[in-house]
């Protein structure tokens, strides 16, 4: 047997080794502050190793598949998690160090990432299911991390119950698809379905199972509560990394396993995209708490992403991956800023941000870059992400959908500007006092905002994604 083929799982192997080292380090170091630094350094090493080129191939009889596109998406997730870890290190020092739970926090987050990696490179439904559960369970444990806070436990129980329900529905859908096709391998199932009521039922069940994870509209009820109750780093992880991985998985399922049912899922996506955009935006308008506000804004963004899945070709894949990459960075910047402000002053409402620019100009600027990117203001990368999604919808001649999306962008611009108006234009008698954060957080937020500004001008990144996304 040729052991070199196992190197196709390089991302996963390095991640598993990282988890083991962290567990040992947590046992054998007395100074828990060191564990924090060890974790960040190890994860940085993992991210760098992940950037090395990786071949296309399959392992375990096609259960594990890797292509350049999947490897590139894993790198995007890696960079996102690295930035989250950098930004949340001060939160970990402040909140987790007294409870002596530093190591656990990192182990759980990295285990969840490992699950996502197995999920997105799965070629068989058992692998998909195990990856999905490994990705979800640690996050539920993390959401209920603050054991003395009622809100945190409530967020945890809401997340675990809705995740379990969604995986139950997903499993029932998979069993229907198994009955029709007689196989659980993606490659053997493709093109086996055609026109029957049973296959439509199975597709809708699998779709709704994934829609729970992406928080698309009929299945979004857990989102706001979980994001508000969970600790901010966990909410940030949930809104960018989990959602990004689930969107990617949904894309693989729709394009690779159910290409012959395109006529069903285009109707589904069309309706759900419109519903998700409107509901997310209209609920975001009336929020005061920033974490709830960001939750509904992320629901609305998921609606935009669904618009990009409509055409099932290279254009759609590259547009969706590009949008997810930008969305990950913008949300990390905003969540990072919210978290740093919340940690320094324990203020979570939009009105509390009045006069923020006068006391903390740098963090207000980062917040502005992130919000403008989500809203899609031209010089910043978010505009191009949205633009490519419109191009996908236009290539299928869904002009009404584009019109509705543009209306929704206008609504979203209004509420994103509410935060910016509070920070920059409004005055306050007692604004949030000036604070300084540690070096890791500064690096994290700085790098993420710089990439957001840079990607708007630097186009080869999109060309690169476009060149590797012809794998499907």
């Amino acid at each position, binding site marked *: 047997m040729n052991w070199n083929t196992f190197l196709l799982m390089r991302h996963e192997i390095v991640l598993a080794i990282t988890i083991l080292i962290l567990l040992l380090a947590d046992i054998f170091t007395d100074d828990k502050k060191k564990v924090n630094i060890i974790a960040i350094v190890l994860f940085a090493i993992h991210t760098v190793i992940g950037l090395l080129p990786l071949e296309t191939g399959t392992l375990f009889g096609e259960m594990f598949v890797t292509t350049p596109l999947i490897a590139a998406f894993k790198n995007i997730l890696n960079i996102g998690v690295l930035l989250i870890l950098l930004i949340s290190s001060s939160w970990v020092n402040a909140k987790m160090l007294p409870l002596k739970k530093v190591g656990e926090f990192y182990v759980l987050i990295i285990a969840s990432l490992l699950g996502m990696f197995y999920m997105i490179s799965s070629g068989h*439904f*058992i692998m998909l*299911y*195990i990856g999905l*559960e490994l990705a979800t*369970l640690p996050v*539920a*444990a993390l959401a*209920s991390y603050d*054991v*003395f806070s*009622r*809100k945190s*436990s*409530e*967020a*945890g*129980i809401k997340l*675990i*119950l809705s*995740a*379990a*329900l969604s*995986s*139950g*529905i997903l*499993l*029932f859908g*998979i*069993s*229907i698809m*198994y*009955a029709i096709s*007689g*196989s*659980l391998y993606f490659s053997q199932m493709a093109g086996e379905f055609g026109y029957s009521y049973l296959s439509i039922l199975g597709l809708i069940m699998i779709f709704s199972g994934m829609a729970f994870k992406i928080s698309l509209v009929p299945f979004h009820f857990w989102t*706001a*509560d979980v994001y*508000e*109750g969970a600790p901010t780093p966990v909410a940030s992880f949930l809104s960018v990394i989990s959602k990004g991985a689930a969107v990617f998985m949904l894309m693989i399922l729709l394009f690779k396993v159910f290409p012959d049912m395109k006529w069903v899922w285009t109707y589904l996506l069309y309706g759900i995209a419109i519903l998700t955009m409107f509901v997310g935006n209209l*609920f975001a308008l009336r929020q005061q708490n920033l974490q709830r506000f960001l939750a509904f804004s992320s629901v609305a963004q998921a609606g935009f992403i669904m618009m990009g899945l409509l055409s099932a070709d290279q254009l759609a894949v590259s547009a969706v991956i590009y949008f997810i990459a930008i969305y990950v960075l913008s949300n990390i910047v905003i969540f990072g800023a919210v978290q740093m402000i919340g940690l320094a002053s324990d203020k979570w409402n939009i009105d509390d941000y009045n006069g923020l620019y006068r006391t903390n100009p740098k963090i207000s600027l980062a917040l502005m870059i992130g919000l403008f990117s989500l809203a899609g203001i031209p010089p910043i990368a978010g505009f191009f992400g949205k633009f490519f999604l419109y191009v996908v919808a236009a290539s299928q001649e869904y002009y009404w959908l584009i019109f509705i999306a543009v209306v929704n962008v206008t609504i979203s611009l209004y509420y994103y500007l509410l935060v910016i108006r509070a920070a920059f234009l409004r005055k306050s008698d007692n604004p949030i006092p000036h604070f300084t954060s540690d070096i890791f957080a500064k690096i994290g937020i700085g790098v993420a905002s710089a990439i957001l500004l840079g990607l708007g001008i630097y186009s080869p990144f999109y060309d690169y994604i476009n060149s590797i996304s012809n794998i499907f």
Partner: protein
Amino acid sequence: MIEGVSIYEILTLSTLIFFIGVFGFFTRKNLIAMLMSIELILNSAAFNFVIVNKYLYPEQLDGGIFSLFIIAIAAAETALALAIIINLYRLVMSLNTDKLETLKN
């Protein structure tokens, strides 16, 4: 294969269990009862896999193996949910969702 029982009857049973589970999940107010409903849903899916495997594709093993994985992972899920429920009960002294809920629109 069970003598005298066709696949239609037995799939009707598993689908019924699934929808009883979904109904229970949305109507029950007690967290433990909600957890039990989820177990019904997961078990109906596992049941479905075994039936399909046995009746339609008797030469394969995929469905049976999948149901084993479902049982194992459902146990992990339940353990975690129960841990959170115990912690919540210590904080609130209740398992009723109406009393627990503080996060709302």
